[in-house]
């Protein structure tokens, strides 16, 4: 009965804040919903760790440790962002950035868009993770795009329209490729299972028969899935919509997009990867994945090196990390899969945190261009500025922060599997990314600052940042055992251990 509740909570929250009349109400609805959701997610993890696999609505919903992991991460990001959003939008009202430039009624109607859509957005992501049926999963993924398009247009600027259009069109094309892939998978399974029922598209069913599927069809299907869900995950060369969408969306939404949505897309990819590697041997999907993974790592380097806008910088970081995770998947094997799930966990925390800090900096300086900021954010924003630099170091894999560990695991897996070229490229691109990030963010945070008062402690925003900073730092040295077991058994599912 847990699974339906997890899905219903955000739906209800969305509906409520849609009819809500006052801002405070919408805020509290969201906060309560996401807090509840996080608790439910933790409960789900507990059950999954105990029972292994749980399912609801006679098999329509299905949660193994991988889905539990994704749900947990999504819930975490949702919670942090909902806390942050309160402070963020109040600040926006103070700065009068909404149409009409006035606080009050217009502001509330605009805010309704965010507070109503975000829960739906999160709902569809949860559905992706919990749906057993690959078709439903596709529908849910498409829904994530549709719900988030209007989050991208939130500020209604010309540029945000442009970004939204690119996001919608490219996303649409990508997902239709993924749909074709799904259809072909169904077709290749069709002859074996020979049933018309809904269950014949259930992953848990397919995975048991995957070995007998029609090989060529499966290859074709996997190509299409890779391109399709790859588009959603922002793997090069389908990554082009990402910087636009991330830099136009309001910061909390961008944070969710860049961490949780990425996870969902990869989740879809992983499900099909398991089928493909069962049907064909691991090599075929592995080679393709490595190709695209390394490509997207490489493509993000020059854009990080010469970047003028720090929100786009973060977007390219996300592309880089999508590449890293795809590479990990391509390396495969228990170690590679472990690296993937581990990296997914760490990246989600770090990247959302990074976006939130960027948001505070953005609101303080009223610009997201490096060029327009003299520097010295560390003086003007003692807390957010420091954390911004820290999180940047974390995201580019600097110890003691844990991304270094996961990247190390992935590299080790790659070397053990003998993918020397990809591994070396991984390291080289890593250095490039590091250079770009430290160059720009260092210049933003350090240095002499314009004269001006030191920013006070922002109750909502800073506490959200503080929360996930604490998580990030602790994870660097110590991972609670259940969390670790979850990650490892999720890795087990990826590498098709059981």
């Amino acid at each position, binding site marked *: 009965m847990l699974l339906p509740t997890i899905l219903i909570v955000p739906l209800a929250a969305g509906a409520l804040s849609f009819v809500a009349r006052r801002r405070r109400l919408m805020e509290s609805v969201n906060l309560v919903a996401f807090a509840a959701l996080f608790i439910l997610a933790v409960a789900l993890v507990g059950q999954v760790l105990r029972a292994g696999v749980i399912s609801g609505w006679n098999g329509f919903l299905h949660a193994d440790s991988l889905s539990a992991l994704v749900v947990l991460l999504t819930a975490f990001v949702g919670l942090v962002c909902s806390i942050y959003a309160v402070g963020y939008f109040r600040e926006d009202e103070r700065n009068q950035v909404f149409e009409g430039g006035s606080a009050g009624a217009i502001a509330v109607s605009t805010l309704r868009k965010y507070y109503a859509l975000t829960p739906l957005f999160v709902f569809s992501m949860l559905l992706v993770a919990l749906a057993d049926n690959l078709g439903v999963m596709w529908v849910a993924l498409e829904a994530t795009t549709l719900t988030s398009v209007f989050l991208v*247009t939130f500020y209604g600027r010309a540029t945000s*329209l442009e970004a939204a259009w690119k996001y919608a*069109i490219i996303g649409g*094309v990508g997902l*239709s490729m993924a749909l074709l892939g799904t*259809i072909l998978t169904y077709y290749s399974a069709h002859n074996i299972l020979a049933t018309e029922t809904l269950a014949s598209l259930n992953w848990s069913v397919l995975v048991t028969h995957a070995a007998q599927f*029609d090989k060529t069809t499966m290859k074709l299907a996997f190509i299409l899935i890779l391109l399709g869900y790859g588009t959603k995950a922002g793997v090069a060369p389908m990554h082009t919509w990402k910087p636009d969408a991330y830099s136009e969306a309001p910061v909390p939404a961008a944070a969710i997009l860049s961490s949780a949505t990425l996870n969902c897309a990869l989740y879809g990819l992983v499900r099909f990867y398991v089928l493909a590697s069962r049907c064909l041997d691991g090599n075929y999907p592995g080679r393709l994945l490595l190709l695209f993974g390394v490509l997207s790592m490489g493509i993000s380097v020059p854009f990080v090196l010469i970047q003028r806008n720090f929100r786009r910088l973060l977007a390219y970081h996300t592309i880089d990390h999508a590449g890293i995770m795809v590479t990990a998947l391509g390396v495969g094997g228990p170690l590679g899969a472990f690296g993937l799930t581990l990296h997914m966990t760490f990246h989600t925390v770090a990247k959302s945190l990074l976006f939130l800090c960027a948001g505070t900096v953005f609101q303080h300086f009223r610009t997201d261009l490096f060029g327009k900021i003299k520097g010295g954010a560390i003086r003007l924003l003692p807390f957010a500025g420091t954390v911004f630099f820290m999180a940047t170091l974390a995201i580019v894999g600097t110890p003691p922060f844990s991304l270094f560990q996961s990247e190390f695991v992935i590299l080790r897996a790659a070397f053990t599997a003998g993918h020397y070229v990809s591994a070396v490229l991984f390291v080289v691109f890593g250095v490039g990314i590091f250079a770009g990030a430290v160059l720009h963010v260092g210049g933003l945070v350090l240095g002499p600052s314009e004269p001006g008062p030191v920013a006070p402690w922002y109750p909502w925003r800073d506490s959200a940042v503080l929360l996930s900073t604490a998580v990030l730092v602790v994870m660097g040295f110590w991972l609670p055992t259940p969390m670790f077991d979850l990650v490892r058994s999720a890795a087990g599912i990826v590498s098709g251990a059981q």
Partner: protein
Amino acid sequence: MIFWQDPQFGNRLITMMAALVLVLQILMVAQRSIVGNIRGFGIQSFLLASIAATIAYFNHATQVYIVAALTLVFKAIVLPLILEQLVERIQIRQEIEPFLNAPLSVIVSGLLTLVAYIVAESLHRPEQGTAQTSLGHNTLAVALALFLIGFFMMLNRRKALTQILGLLSLENGLFLAAISLTYGMPLLIELGITFDLLVAVLVLGVLVYRIRETFDSMDVSKLSRLRG
């Protein structure tokens, strides 16, 4: 037996209609007026619906009738109406200026069809020569062709609306694949997909409308402010 119960006849019929769909698609590539394109899409959807119906009839697959009905209602009637209304709302020139001119575009679509056939060929399994698989590889080729050409339309056309049209005809390709390869996905999925499609069109429609307002032009190739 009487020919309207003979599955071979059914196959022919289906293949013929699939071919028609393909031809329509290529015509749409060459077509210059937006409204014409929309109508073309309507007819295409209608043909697809009837393909579905035929399959349902010959293979006695009842749930496919529902799929056919859905397609008829939504794709052949509702969507074209919405789109035409949109065209009314935003008074735009009825012209489509593609990047490649009509003859070139047609040649490209021909090549794409070729690609589709090559790919489908590699999936062809003569040894397990059931009606369905042979039907499969034939219509799969058409479906892929539809898909690719639809994609090509999207990147060949400047106007936002026409990109939506491309997306739709691309979706038609998917539909054809689904319906002909596997007698349609499970019903629930079909419903989901159709619903998604509808929402997508609405969302895109709204976007088109607002683009029109903000840029007073539909030319999305002008939307290139976000770089690097």
